[in-house]
């Protein structure tokens, strides 16, 4: 049985605790790295991470990209939508096709 984790600054994620997801408020990049690494090996199926923290931890996230679990998914935080999630989708189109043929006009 897998668990679902949510990482980010406390204000962005405390609501998820009510739903039964496990929240991991982070403040410091080093600490966040450690938390992410432990989440990857300790049976989390999905890790939602706020876009701000995803951009800080992008190297770690890329490292775990080829594994089936956990799926590390970016969500907008409390400070607003940075568009990083959408960019991520566009990036995978670019990787597959060679250039962004689907969503390029939305830019």
């Amino acid at each position: 049985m897998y668990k679902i984790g949510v990482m980010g600054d406390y204000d962005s994620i405390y609501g998820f605790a009510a739903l039964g997801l496990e929240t991991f408020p982070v403040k410091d990049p080093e600490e966040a790295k450690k938390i992410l690494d432990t989440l990857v090996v300790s049976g989390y199926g999905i890790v939602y991470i706020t876009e701000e923290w995803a951009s800080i931890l992008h190297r770690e996230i890329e490292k775990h990209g080829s594994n089936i679990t956990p799926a590390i998914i970016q969500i907008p935080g409390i400070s607003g939508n940075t568009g990083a999630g959408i960019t991520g989708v566009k990036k995978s189109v670019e990787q597959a096709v060679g250039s962004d043929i689907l969503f390029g006009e939305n830019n």
Partner: protein
Amino acid sequence: MASTTVTPTRMELTKQKKKLATAVKGHKLLKDKRDELMRQFLDLVRENMELRIKVEAGITSANTNFVIAKAGMDGATLNTALMSPKQEVHLSVSNKNVMSVDIPVFDITTKTADANDIYSYGFAFTSSDLDAAVKSLADILPDMLELAEKEKACQLMASEIEKTRRRVNALEHVIIPEAQVNIKYIKMKLDENERSSQIRLMKVKDMMLEEAHNFAEKDAARAAEKVAKEREMYGA
């Protein structure tokens, strides 16, 4: 090209022909795989984009609701209210194989079946805004789950497509032309050898025929020569 490294022998020719046949077959299969993966990927990525826009809008509005809820009550009460959740979410992950790419399928089970168990607090000390905020977040959760599934699938398929595309290109532009060039080179070399030995045989045959046709005259000439030699010897 690399034809400098092949030795022009029949064995090498058979080897190169086999290599070419395998490469052509592999190229066709990989191309089919790439096309099918691409078709599925494009469908999936469109769904992924729609879901993402929906989820992001949902979360943003939920966040707004939480801010409103937080404004209406003090932080300590809010923390206490959300401190010990009643609900627990368990996730079961199974794999689905799409064109030899393993993509995850997420299935969610909650500890209690009651949808109202998301409210982990008594209603006495919290504002109704908090109920609305928690509800809005709970409503978006199934979509978030689907998003996770689709987005991960997209990422995995994208990297697989990239790999397959590179393989197809390598076969199409390097391996196959190289094998063709090698085969052509070996064939030409073998033909050349064949021709040169043919010519040699014809020449030898000509010489032998010449010898056979004029046998009597040549024999007489040889005999006369012999007699002349002997006469010279004894005459001396």
